[in-house]
C-alpha cells in the first residue's frame, strides 16, 4: 500500500521536474529562434535559413561562404545580437540569484548600487576624460565604468564584514551608497558641456549599438563562469531562502555565502553595464516571469532565467531596431515597454502568489 503510494508520489515528483526541464528547453529553443530571426532584420534582406546556413558555413564549411552574407552577419549584426544574448543571460541570472540571496522580490542586479557606481565612472570618463586605464575612448570608458560599478559592492561587503548583517541591511547599505554616487555624478554633470552631457545621457539609458565581438567575449566569460558557479550553489541558495537561522542550523554560513554571491553577481552585472550602460528591468522581471512558470527552486530558476533573460533582451533589441527604423530607440526603453505590460498581465492572471 505504502510502496504503491510512494511510487505514485515519486512519479508525480519526476513529472513535476520534467515539466521544469521542458520549460528550460523551450526557453533555449526560443533563444535560438530569436537569434536566427534577429539576424534577418535590417536593410540587407537575409532570410532566416540563409542566416542559419551562413553561420554554419562560417564555422564548418568555409568553401560555401557567401562573402556579403558573411559580412552582414559577422561584422554587422551578430556582434550586437550576441552581445544582447549574453547580456540578457547575465542580467537574468544575476537578478534571480540576487532576489534569492536578498530574500527580496524587488532586488535586481543593480540593488547594490552598482548602476550608480557605473554611471559615476562613465561620467568621469565621458565628461572629464578621466580613466582608470589611463587611456581614453571606449577602453577608458568601459574599464572606468567597470571599476566604479564594483565600488558599492565593496562598500557593502566592508560594512557587512564588520558585523554579520542581514540581507535587509545589505540592501540599505547599497541604497545609501547609491545616493552618494548619484550626488557625485550630479555635481560633475553640472560642470559639463552640452555635448558631454548628451554622451553621458546616451550611455545611461542602456544601448547595444556599440556592441562588438570584444564586448560579447568579455560578457560571455563572466556570464558562463558566473552561471556555472551559481548553478553549483543553487541548492545552498535554496537553503538560504528558508531564513538565516534555519540556514545556520542546517550548517550553512549565510553571511559567507551572501558575500560570495554578491561578488559573483556584481562581476556579472558590471561586465554588462560597462559595455551597454544601464539596461533595466531584465534582471528584475525575467526571474519573476520564470518563477510564475517554474517556482522558486534555484536549480531550475537560474538556467531558465539565463535563457529567458537572453530572449527578453534580444526581442527588446529587435523591437528597438525596427520600431522607428532607420533610426532606433535605446533598448533600455524597450525592455521597460514590453517587460512592464507582460509582467503586469502575468501578475494579474496568476491566481496564486509566488513569493
Amino acid at each position, binding site marked *: 500500500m*505504502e510502496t504503491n*503510494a*510512494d511510487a505514485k*508520489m*515519486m512519479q*508525480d*515528483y519526476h513529472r*513535476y*521536474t520534467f515539466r521544469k526541464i521542458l520549460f528550460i528547453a523551450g526557453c533555449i529553443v526560443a533563444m535560438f529562434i530569436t537569434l536566427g530571426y534577429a539576424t534577418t532584420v535590417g536593410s540587407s534582406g537575409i532570410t532566416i535559413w540563409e542566416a542559419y546556413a551562413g553561420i554554419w558555413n562560417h564555422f564548418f564549411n568555409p568553401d560555401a561562404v557567401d562573402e556579403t552574407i558573411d559580412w552582414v552577419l559577422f561584422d554587422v549584426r551578430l556582434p550586437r545580437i550576441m552581445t544582447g544574448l549574453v547580456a540578457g543571460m547575465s542580467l537574468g541570472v544575476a537578478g534571480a540569484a540576487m*532576489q*534569492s540571496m536578498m*530574500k*527580496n*522580490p524587488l532586488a535586481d542586479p543593480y540593488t547594490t548600487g552598482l548602476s550608480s557606481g557605473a554611471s559615476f565612472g562613465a561620467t568621469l570618463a565621458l565628461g572629464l576624460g578621466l580613466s582608470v586605464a589611463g587611456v581614453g575612448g571606449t577602453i577608458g570608458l568601459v574599464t572606468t565604468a567597470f571599476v566604479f560599478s564594483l565600488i558599492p559592492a565593496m562598500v557593502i561587503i566592508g560594512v557587512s564584514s564588520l558585523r554579520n548583517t542581514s540581507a535587509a541591511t545589505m540592501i540599505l547599505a547599497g541604497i545609501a551608497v547609491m545616493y552618494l554616487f548619484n550626488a557625485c555624478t550630479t555635481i560633475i554633470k553640472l560642470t559639463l558641456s552640452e555635448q558631454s552631457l548628451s554622451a553621458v545621457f546616451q550611455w545611461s539609458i542602456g544601448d547595444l549599438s556599440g556592441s562588438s565581438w570584444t564586448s560579447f567575449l568579455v560578457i560571455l566569460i563572466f556570464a558562463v563562469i558566473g552561471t556555472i558557479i551559481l*548553478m*553549483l550553489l*543553487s*541548492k*545552498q541558495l*535554496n*537553503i538560504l*531562502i*528558508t*531564513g*538565516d*537561522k*534555519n540556514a*545556520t*542550523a*542546517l*550548517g*550553512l*554560513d549565510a553571511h559567507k555565502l551572501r558575500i560570495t554571491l554578491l561578488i559573483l553577481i556584481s562581476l556579472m552585472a558590471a561586465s554588462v553595464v560597462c559595455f551597454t550602460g544601464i539596461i533595466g528591468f531584465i534582471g528584475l522581471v525575467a526571474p519573476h516571469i520564470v*518563477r510564475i512558470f517554474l*517556482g*522558486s*527552486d534555484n*536549480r531550475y530558476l537560474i538556467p531558465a532565467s539565463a535563457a529567458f533573460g537572453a530572449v527578453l533582451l534580444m526581442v527588446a533589441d529587435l523591437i528597438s531596431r525596427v520600431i522607428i527604423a532607420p533610426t532606433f530607440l535605446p533598448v533600455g526603453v524597450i525592455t521597460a515597454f514590453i517587460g512592464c505590460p507582460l509582467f503586469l498581465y502575468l501578475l494579474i492572471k496568476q491566481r*496564486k*502568489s*509566488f*513569493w
Partner: protein
Amino acid sequence: MQMKVEMKDLEFGYDPNVPVLKGITQTLDKPEFVCIMGPNGVGKSTLIHCMNKILKPSSGFVYINDKEVREYKLKELAGHMGYVPNASEDSFPLSVVDTVMVGLQNDHKFGTSDDDLQKVYDVLRLMKIQHLAMRDFNELSAGQHQKVMLARGLVRTPEIVLLDEPTSNLDVRHQLEVTKVLSELPRQKGMLVIMISHDINITAKYADRIIMLHGGGIYAVGTPSEVITKENIRTVYGVDADVIDVNGRPHVILNESLEDSEDI
C-alpha cells in the same frame, strides 16, 4: 548512537550588561523527550540557539557529544542536530517535497535521488501530510507550515533535535498528535528530542523530563510530577492553579493570574 548536550555555567545576553541566561548547567545524555518551559522572554529560544550555534554564548560552555560547540564547523554540528524554528522565514516558496528536502543537507549534489525522495515521503507520512507533497509551501495554512517545518527538521533523523514551539499554530487535535509523535521518537529512533512548549498539560502528558526556566536560570528540572506543581506554577508563571493527578501524570487547572506577580 551518542547524544549528549552538556551546558556548563552558560551565560548569554544580547546586551553584555543584561544577561538573558545565566548559570545554566545541565546535562542531557540519553534518548528522551525533554521539554523546556517558562514564561515569555525567559530565554527558552535563546537557550536552544546557544546549543546549535545560532547564538554565541557570552560565557560558559556548551558541549555536544563531548566537543565544545565553538570547535564545531557549522556543517559538522548540523550533522548531529536537527532544528525546527517557531515560525517560517521562507521567502520564495518551494514545493513541500523540495522544502523538506532542504533538511537533508545534501547541497553537494545537484539532483534528487529516489533515496532522498523516499526519506522525504517517510517523514511526510510521519507528520500525516503526505497529501500535501506537491503543493507549494505558501499555499498552506500556518498549521500545515509548522508540520512541514517539523518534517524538514526530522527528515535526516538526527541524534538530537531542537524544536522551538513547534505546535504553536496547531489546533488541539494536531497538537496532541504531533506531540505524541515527537514523544515516541526517543524510543523508536533513539533520538534526544528537546522541545520548547507553552502548553503545560500536553507537556505534562508526554514529556520524559521538564526543564523550567525562571529569572534567566533553571528553576526546576525533573519528571512532570516533580516540576509541575502548584508552587512552581505560581512562582514561574504568576498564576494560581490546581494540579491534579490523571493516570499518574499531573494535570493543571488554571484559576487566575496573580496581580502582584512580576510582569513578564
